[in-house]
């Protein structure tokens, strides 16, 4: 059963290893853990309609599955029932499945060519883990397997107590399609897409996710070719035909597997210039130098602004010479990161402060109660 051209990567898609886009990004996080439904974030992203063209919209929501929080929520799209049975055969073989079912949607005329959308709450079967392999590593391997080897199946998201909802359409339509007003989350991240060189397809919409990490991205990664080849050495296989994918995998590699701090992450993805590094005091200089020497292949070159999120953090970052916009805002415990300032004012009356970070300077919002934000980064 063929479900429409915008569903899956067409066979000729291999010709475009990455696509690039001008986009809108928006993120909001309640550092106190208070939850809101999807309406404000939809309103905010819709306000930047100029920045998207209806070829992709998506959301990541954290804190939406509290009752099943100890299970990984695998959200998948399938080309057809055959793909679903192929994938389910693998999922049942590899995981204990607590709950499974279609993702609830509502029919609206603006969203068409819809793939099958399912979610599975799973836990790796202990017998499947390789020696000394953690559950997270196993999940990464399983996601790669599904994306690479199971034809017609793609994993939207694979984290705990979170989910990614995305598709082809304007983000506000995608939000209504997925009935996001029915979900309550403490962090919402949204994306509206304006792809310039490829047709939109469901898998290519943002956010990109691996485990808890989600990335929304505005820009084009000129270094994509080498970022991808570097990540391949560590077992990440880029299958979704967009450069944003490499950011998600790089974040997973650097923060989770290599244990770097967020500041180190920013120094890798948007490395300071050598002339800045050379002026640092010795200890910092050595660390910054080592980071560029070791992780030079993960420097994200070219224009970007991104919001990276997980269950406890939301990080905004621009490229080192700041070729894409990013603005931050704060209202009590609520932190906002956005392509533009207007949507924050639209949904938040109590905005205390907004500011624009420098190129390569991360904005970090953290869940911990208290200051929440790091010294030297705004506030």
């Amino acid at each position, binding site marked *: 059963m063929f479900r429409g051209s915008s569903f899956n990567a067409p066979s000729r898609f291999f010709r475009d290893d990455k696509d690039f886009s001008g986009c809108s990004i928006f993120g909001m996080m309640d550092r106190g853990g208070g939850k809101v439904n999807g309406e404000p974030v939809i309103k905010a992203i819709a306000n930047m309609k100029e920045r998207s063209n209806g070829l992709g919209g998506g959301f990541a929501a954290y804190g939406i599955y509290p009752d099943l929080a100890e299970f990984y929520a695998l959200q998948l799209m399938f080309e057809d029932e055959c793909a679903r049975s192929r994938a389910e055969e693998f999922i049942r073989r590899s995981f204990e499945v607590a709950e499974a079912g279609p993702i609830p949607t509502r029919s609206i005329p603006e969203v068409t060519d819809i793939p099958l959308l399912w979610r599975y709450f799973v836990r790796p079967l202990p017998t499947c883990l390789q020696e000394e392999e953690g559950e997270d590593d196993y999940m990464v391997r399983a996601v790669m397997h599904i994306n690479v080897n199971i034809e017609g199946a793609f994993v939207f998201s694979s984290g705990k107590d979170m989910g990614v909802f995305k598709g082809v359409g304007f983000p506000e339509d995608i939000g209504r399609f997925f009935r996001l007003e029915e979900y309550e989350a403490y962090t919402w991240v949204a994306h509206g897409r304006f792809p*310039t060189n490829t047709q939109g397809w469901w898998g290519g919409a943002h956010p990109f996710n691996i485990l808890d990490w989600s990335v929304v991205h505005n820009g084009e990664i*000129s270094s994509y070719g080498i970022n991808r080849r570097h990540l391949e050495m560590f077992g990440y296989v880029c299958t979704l035909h967009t450069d944003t994918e490499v950011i998600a995998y790089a974040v997973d590699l650097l923060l989770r597997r290599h244990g770097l701090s967020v500041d180190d992450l920013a120094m890798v993805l948007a490395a300071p210039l050598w002339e800045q590094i050379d002026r640092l005091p010795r200890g910092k200089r050595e660390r910054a130098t080592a980071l560029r020497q070791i992780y030079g292949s993960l420097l994200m070159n070219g224009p970007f602004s991104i919001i990276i999120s997980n269950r406890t953090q939301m990080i905004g970052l621009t490229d080192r010479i700041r070729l894409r916009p990013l603005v931050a805002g704060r209202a009590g415990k609520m932190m906002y990161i956005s392509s533009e300032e207007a949507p924050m004012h639209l949904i938040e009356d109590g905005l205390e402060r907004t500011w624009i970070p420098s190129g390569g300077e991360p904005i970090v919002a953290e869940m911990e109660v208290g200051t929440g934000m790091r010294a030297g980064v705004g506030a």
Partner: protein
Amino acid sequence: MKSYILPEFLVERDDYRCIRCEVCVRQCAFEAHRYDADEDAVFVDESKCCGCLRCVTLCPTRALTVRRNPTQTPDNYNWTREQLMDAYKQAETGGVLLTGMGCGRELPIYWDRIVLDASQVTNPSIDPLREPMELRTWLGAKPDRLDSQGEGKRRRIEGMGPQLKLETPMMFSAISYGAISYNTCEALARAAAELGTYYNTGEGGLRRDLYKYGRHTICQVASGRFGVHADYLEAAAALEIKIGQGAKPGIGGHLPGEKVSLEISRTRMIPEGSDAISPAPHHDIYSIEDLAQLIYALKEATHWTKPVSVKIAAVHNSAAIASGIVRAGADIVAIDGIRGGTGAAPTRIRDNVGIPIELALAAVDDRLRAEGIRNRASIVVAGGFRNSGDVIKAIALGADAVYLGTPALVAMGCHVCRKCYTGKCNWGIATQDPYLSKRLNPELAARRLVNMINAWSHEIMEMLGGMGINAIESLRGNRLRLRGVGLSREELDILGIKHAGE
């Protein structure tokens, strides 16, 4: 025996312009020009002309023209003039044909079949005159992850080897003192120091006068072990074990005794006037584990403070060999392609043995990545670079840096006449004759080198900026920014690039 060899060039003198100044007579070490005082005329023996254009360049009245001898040999696709002359030469001498410089055969030059990308609309191109543009490159072993151990001054990063810092990803190739004059060595050293990069001693040792440039010197350890001693190793910034050379894979080298002057004998630590023979293999390296021993011996000898490079010629199974070299502990793998230069090589070996560097580079980079060991060593490639376009394509294919040999000599005046092995280089480069070598002023030659590398660096910056990239590491191995033109599917697969239009 009457020679059947036709002169390669004709030298034409405009007698109206010629002022009998005899510059040409003095400049030609091959004695192609002769002044006859009785007749007040300058005569030419064309059979001696090597086509180096020294006389043409220096003639103050531009009275001279050198052109290819138009005499035609009978038309034959097989038996071209070149083939005929080579056969006559061997029939007359019974010798192995010797030549200099790199292979100039019509093998495909893949650089000319690869084109670069540029940004349009979605990604702003960057103007390097107004925005930062970084070429700084580090060579040496790097770990897969940052994992620091210890505290304060004793802090170190697990797996991080000593690094060479290059301000531009270009170095000067190994050319030995002996193959080239002292002045030429000095020019290379001065230029490397000024550019913030490195030159390579080749296998001829290092004269003590040049130790002051040691921080910009890569010292070679080759099969003859010429000039290798504690101070030599100590003076260097990095060491290189030379296993092979692109111009003559599988064979060694031979510096004839006539060239072994007092200074060369001291530097190479051999008796004056004796032949300096580099054996084909290292006789203490008959397999990979022996190479590993030499790598670690050199590391020990230099207290683990210097990266050790291993240089091989590009041959069929370079990828597997390179993998072995990395696993044997090398910090840098240098690969020299079939078009790489030489001071002297048997013509048939130079022209028939080895593979083009583009293919070897792509295969080695792929292999090291497939094995997950690409970070453990840097890749430096040599052999056949002619301009910054070639260099940037090599970096996009996966090289960390390139070695430039012939381009450096050309910058200093070399006209690629391929007579280096005669020792009569009229440009004062490949000679030990004091009369000839003083023609090369180290200061001026260094200026020419610095100018050329700076110009190439600027061009690389412009091309990077055009691609929307402002740091060289974002292009390194970024083959998506390359496309092939007119290449077969197999060639594209090996190079790991797409065809233009894809």
